[in-house]
């Protein structure tokens, strides 16, 4: 079935694929070297394929900055609490809708799915959060997206494949529906819940727009917003607050380019570390997502 001969066409394919990957690898590698370079090299520019001079000063500045740590803390808070709550409520709704005998099921399914296709839009959503008094609260990062209709449909489809007979025997044994949901349905659905949980974690880690519009208190800024401010407004203003005393001395070693690169790496470090291990679950997840019911 497969030709073993190495043809020109095949060589071309390998070349193109290698180049595609090279643009990704080299981009990250260049930034890594940039983040490890002292100012006079970083500002000169050009492609850095190896660190001409090694310095940890950029990272020292970034890691020593309180905004970065606060960002980490806030991102962790929203990711952990947000993912747990989202997963729980989405699964709970999915469980109810997976029951064919639930009254007005078709209507409720439409009630939820309709929100996937039409929304109030940016301003009405913003005004709602504002009128609920959620501005500058962690709730504003978690509540507006608490349940995703799309994830609910996917989890519901999985629940529907579970055998109803076992649930019925649990009912006869005196277990309530909620207990069955917690102790029987959820543990049996680990594969789909793990997949959705991974989506939610990445979503929370990467989300920035809600923080941008709902949060103005800088002690609640998440990592993405801290990074965005550093990149857009220039790193010096934000990062100097911690080291104003010896700013002049540091000025000679750190550069805005190097600092930004270091910030990017500090922000994405957890994702880069976890990525090789969780990648295959995401690939599985995309297949589950494409199986519609």
């Amino acid at each position: 079935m497969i030709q073993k001969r190495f043809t020109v066409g095949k060589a071309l394919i390998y070349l193109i694929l290698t180049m595609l990957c090279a643009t990704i690898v080299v981009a990250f590698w260049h930034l890594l070297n940039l983040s490890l370079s002292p100012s006079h090299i970083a500002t000169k520019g050009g492609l850095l394929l190896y660190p001409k001079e090694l310095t940890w000063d950029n990272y020292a500045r970034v890691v020593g900055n309180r905004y970065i740590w606060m960002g980490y803390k806030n991102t962790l808070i929203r990711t952990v609490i947000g993912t747990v709550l989202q997963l729980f409520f989405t699964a709970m709704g999915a469980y109810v809708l997976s029951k064919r005998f639930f009254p007005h099921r078709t209507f409720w399914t439409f009630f939820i799915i309709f929100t996937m296709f039409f929304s109030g839009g940016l301003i009405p959503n913003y005004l709602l959060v504002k009128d609920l008094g959620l501005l500058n609260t962690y709730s504003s990062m978690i509540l507006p997206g608490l349940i995703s209709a799309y994830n609910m449909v996917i989890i519901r489809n999985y629940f529907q494949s579970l055998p109803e007979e076992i649930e019925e025997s649990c009912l006869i044994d005196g277990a309530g529906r909620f207990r069955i949901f917690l102790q029987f349905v959820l543990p049996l659905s680990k594969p789909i819940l793990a997949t959705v949980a991974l989506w939610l974690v990445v979503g929370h880690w990467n989300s920035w727009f809600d923080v941008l519009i709902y949060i103005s208190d800088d002690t609640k800024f998440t990592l993405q917003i801290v990074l965005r401010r550093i990149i857009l407004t220039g790193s010096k203003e934000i990062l100097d607050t911690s080291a104003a005393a010896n700013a002049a001395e540091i000025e000679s070693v750190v550069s805005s380019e190097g600092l930004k690169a270091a910030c990017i790496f500090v922000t994405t470090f957890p994702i880069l570390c976890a990525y090789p291990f969780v990648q295959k679950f995401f690939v599985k997840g995309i297949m589950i997502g494409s199986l519609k019911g």
Partner: protein
Amino acid sequence: MPTGEEWAVSVIDTRVPKRENAFRRWLHGFAGYRKYPALTLMFIPVVVYFFIFKYIPMGGIVIAFKNYKISQGIFGSAWVGLDNFTKAFNTPTFARSVRNTLTISGLKLLFGFPAPIILALMLNEVTHARFKKSVQTISYLPHFLSWVVLAGMFQQLLSPNNGAVNAILRDVFGVKESIYFLGNNKYFRGTLIVTDIWKNVGWSSILYLATIAGIDPTLYEAATVDGATRWQCTRYITIPSLVSTIVIMLILSVGSIMDAGFDQVFNLYNSAVYQTGDIIDTYVYRYGLGDMKYSLATAVGLFKNVIAFVLVVGTNLITRKISGEGIW
């Protein structure tokens, strides 16, 4: 086979005749809530959530037809009919944002849509398993990074002063003048398209790769026995097998043509490239939350959402016709 609802009704009240009108059946459904109190209780928070965070904002759309003032609230503000729409439609920046949205989406469709298909076809030719796996792992990576992070990267890489890309263009390709990829209207859209492909091409290829993996291998065997070359196998077996997936994905992409990629544009653009880069979503953000023209921005948002809704529902109906199943 009775549906769940009918079954529930017949269990509760055996006197209900088999044939009854929809309204009666709907009314009888309410008895089910008492029959399944635990399920009903579990469902209440879900309904409350969707009502508050999804349906109330839909009601909030009324401010598109009012002159909303914070001090007067949504109900107290005066009705102005379609003033906000006519005002928006008469500003040149609005027309520009619609034009940019459609152009950027169209270009992304033209170049970004075939890219993952080509990548999947190329990966399918790779017989070296380790190499294939590495290409996949590397090309999926950018998908997991936010546009905030990627914008930070691209600002550095594409910088006209000391960016790596301009350095390569200068030293290797002999381009004399630095290119302002993110600051020049001539290059901005191209930069958007290329960076978008760079981020998503690997990830989007997964679906096509899975479809290819599902093709019956005996087809290839038979073709090879008949003397078909690799290219002929691709041309006459692989590509035809992909057609239905491609058609569905294409229709869905057309359905989301009103989304030109807010995250990407918002993090990469600046006032120098509003001419080519300002899309409807960024327009709504700037006018609504920046200038606090809530009513005007809501009107523009509604305009976009209605068109997007019609497109998505329409394309879904078409997909349903073609494949026998819609996306939901």
